[in-house]
């Protein structure tokens, strides 16, 4: 049948590359409440990232500063005056520690998530595509890691890597590696499941028929199709990474206050203050954790909803609605009332 020049699903030409970036394309697709959630998440996350980047400019004092030209800081001072959010029992400025803490948090996220993505994706691809005994062993190991409470693994790793105490770099890598180990199974599982699914797709079989090598099939055909869900897991894991880091710090495996600021550690030190009515040492680091995690989770959940066409809200057909009669009727009703 000649169906010439019929608008077959000839989709609009590809949008410029920057419009196709994960978060930006999602923003363009969103409407209504979903857009509100995404924007709230983006604002919180943006504030977090900016705070981390601009910490040296924003923070009134250093994270381990105990005195300035006027002498030593007072201890446990209520918010106000020179110390907007007060000081801790050791005399640290709470505002400065909260701001510097963002920097530590973001470093840990980058280290942990980057390492676990690389390792998880490679292992997932190989395990899913090759299959057989290699696959079985890797899956069992991943399951075994799942069985450990993540904090326990993190504590063990912290002890192994740095003896439990450390400098900024050592502490970040200890926390980062600990979190990496916990997250690898997640990336591994997701990529492996996608690989197993894609392996049976006709386009992979057609590459096989053509004579493509396994490495070529994995890198060219499967990898690019299997990694679409990664931005989502990334945002969700980033928030979990912060919680794990805070947990580690709270338990005392964090970073020494003299090497870096760390919210979990500050919360731990604030524990004793609560009974004596000193609320500011605990509230602000706690708020920082809550808001950062909330922001990242909102972004992640919005992306999740927007990726699924069934969950994604759409602009109503608006003016071109095929119910002109109904709109007219409603309009007259409105006028009459």
């Amino acid at each position: 049948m000649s169906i010439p020049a019929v608008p077959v699903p000839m989709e609009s030409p590809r949008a410029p590359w920057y419009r196709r970036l994960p978060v930006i394309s999602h923003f363009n697709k969103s409407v209504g409440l979903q857009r509100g959630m995404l924007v709230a998440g983006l604002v919180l996350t943006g504030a977090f990232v900016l705070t981390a980047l601009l910490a040296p400019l924003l923070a009134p004092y250093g994270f381990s500063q105990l005195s300035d030209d006027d002498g030593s800081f007072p201890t446990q001072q209520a918010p106000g005056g020179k110390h907007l959010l007060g000081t801790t029992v050791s005399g640290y400025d709470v505002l400065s520690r909260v701001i510097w803490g963002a920097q530590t948090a973001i470093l840990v996220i980058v280290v942990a998530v980057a390492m676990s993505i690389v390792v998880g994706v490679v292992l997932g691809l190989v395990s899913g595509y090759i299959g057989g005994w290699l696959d079985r062993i890797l899956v069992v190991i991943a399951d075994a890691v799942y069985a450990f409470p993540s904090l326990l693994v993190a504590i063990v790793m912290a002890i192994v890597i740095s003896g439990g105490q450390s400098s900024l770099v050592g502490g970040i890598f200890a926390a980062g590696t600990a979190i990496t180990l916990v997250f690898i199974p997640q990336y591994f599982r997701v990529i492996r499941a996608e690989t197993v699914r894609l392996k049976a797709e006709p386009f992979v079989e057609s590459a096989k028929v053509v004579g493509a090598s396994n490495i070529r099939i994995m890198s060219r055909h499967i990898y690019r199709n299997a990694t679409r869900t990664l931005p989502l897991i990334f945002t969700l894991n980033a928030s979990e990474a912060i919680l794990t880091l805070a947990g580690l710090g709270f338990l005392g495996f964090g970073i020494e206050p003299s090497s870096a600021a760390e919210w979990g550690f500050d919360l731990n030190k604030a524990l004793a203050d609560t009974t004596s009515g000193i609320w500011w040492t605990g509230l602000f680091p706690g708020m920082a954790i809550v808001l950062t995690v909330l922001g990242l989770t909102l972004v992640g959940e919005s992306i999740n909803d927007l990726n699924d066409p069934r969950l994604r809200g759409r602009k109503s057909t608006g003016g071109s609605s095929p119910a002109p009669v109904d709109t007219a009727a409603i309009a007259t009703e409105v006028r009459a009332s």
Partner: protein
Amino acid sequence: MTVNIDPLDAGHSGDGELDGGRPVLDIDHLQVTFATDGGPVHAVKDVSLEVRKGEVLAIVGESGSGKTVTAKTILGLLPETASSSGAVVINGADVISVSAARLRQIRGRDVAMVFQEPSTALNPVFTVGWQIAEGIRAHAGRESGKRVSAKEAKSRAIEALRKVGIPDPEHRVNYYPQQFSGGQKQRVVIAAALALNPGLIVADEPTTALDVTVQAEILELLRDLRDKYGTSIVLITHNMGVVADLADRVVVMYQGDVVEEAPARTLFAEPRQDYTRKLLAAVPHLGHNSASEGLTSRAHQDEDVLVEANNLTIEYPGRLGTPAFKAVDRVSFTLSRGEVFGLVGESGSGKTTIGRAIAGLNRTTGGSLKVLGYEMLNLRERTFKPLRKDIGFVFQDPAASFNPQLTIGECIAEPMVIHTRPSPAQVRKRVGELLESVQLPASYAARYPHELSGGQRQRASLARALSLNPRLLIADEPTSALDVSVQAKVLELFKDIQQEFEFACLFISHDLAVVDILSSWVGVLYKGRLVEQGIGSHIMGNPQHDYTKRLIASLPVPDPEEQARRREQHRALLGI
């Protein structure tokens, strides 16, 4: 088929008679619009039609014509992103404007639906009896105020199963869906639709997922329902043979509009509209346009033999404790240079397994299969790889056989890049030539697969298979995912290219008419065995094996008069 007259019928069929000549379904200026990422899509633009009591109305059209959306509107099953206007009146109630509660009452009692895929329409964790009774109990409480006991609901489910010809319904009412075959599952779905004796059944492609021999039985059943109970049926289909077999009146849809509406015989005999004429001309008709017309002996026998199967057996290992499943059982055939071998069979006959084994995608487990002189038993990928450049493969679904992340040009070039390592300029030139030979503009090389239509993608798929000038091409159902009009064009192109490049071709299909157009030598597979092979026109005209006879007789042809005759023959063959 035996159909018992159900005393419960009497209560309901009275309603219909009171209404006299009023249509069971009246659709008036229906429009449906979907909100999508790319703006509103008008799926149904302006459709008006009516269905009278005891009438089978077929809505035919190609994909995207809006026929399924129209059917779903009748039951109020549109997704949230759709908005509709106009009127769909069933027994005096407008489905579009009634409340959700009223709509629930209408569904099942006044109108019921039969879905395309019976395996997914039934819930695997409940017995079929429970699923049929579900509808009965959901309605009984609301209407008469008294609840229907579980026992009564079950006895009515048994009645419904008996009506659709399930043997031993008292016993099988407690079976789970997976204990039935595909055709029986579709009968159960129809039984569930019939449970409340609705005046109207909407059947959306009710036989598309079924084999032709089973399809014939289901069509027989639907015809029986109309004749014995006066049920009206809205039949949604793309298969012109099914329309010719069952429909009283036909509505042809194209891009959301009704193109033509006429009684079935008139439509097939003298279509008025251009579109309908083209659509009918594109439908392959068994016995017309045969590739082997006038042949008396097998052609190409003096050429090299490229594929030789000798007692080829392929088994899939069973689960613990169950024996291995023999997908292919002692099959022997040869395929010579330049020949087109058509392999026909229903689902599960092993035809795809044979094709995949020749391409090295499946392992053979017994007998011998020589491909280009290479013994495929104990295949080693490393030694077989050099031969792969001589084998092209065209997959069934053109949408899935292209990597969505690569351009068409990159996909077509892949075999060259792997085997001959050409320069980018050579690649561009060759891709342009290939696209031209499958009648696509060279500029399509820069497009992504989703930017092409189904037929264009299948041409590109053919171009990829041909990129290294293979001596052997395996085409596994290359046109079954396409609309008839597109299929006709692709088949024509396929035929031309085969004659031009003179490759040997194994053409696998479930559609006898399609195979007959392309291949001179045809093999018929049944449950893994090659029951018959011979010259295409001889097999179609004078089948020898019982199964082949049944297969050919159950294929509906797009011509109501001829189909009525064939139906009688088919009945005689089955001894009804």
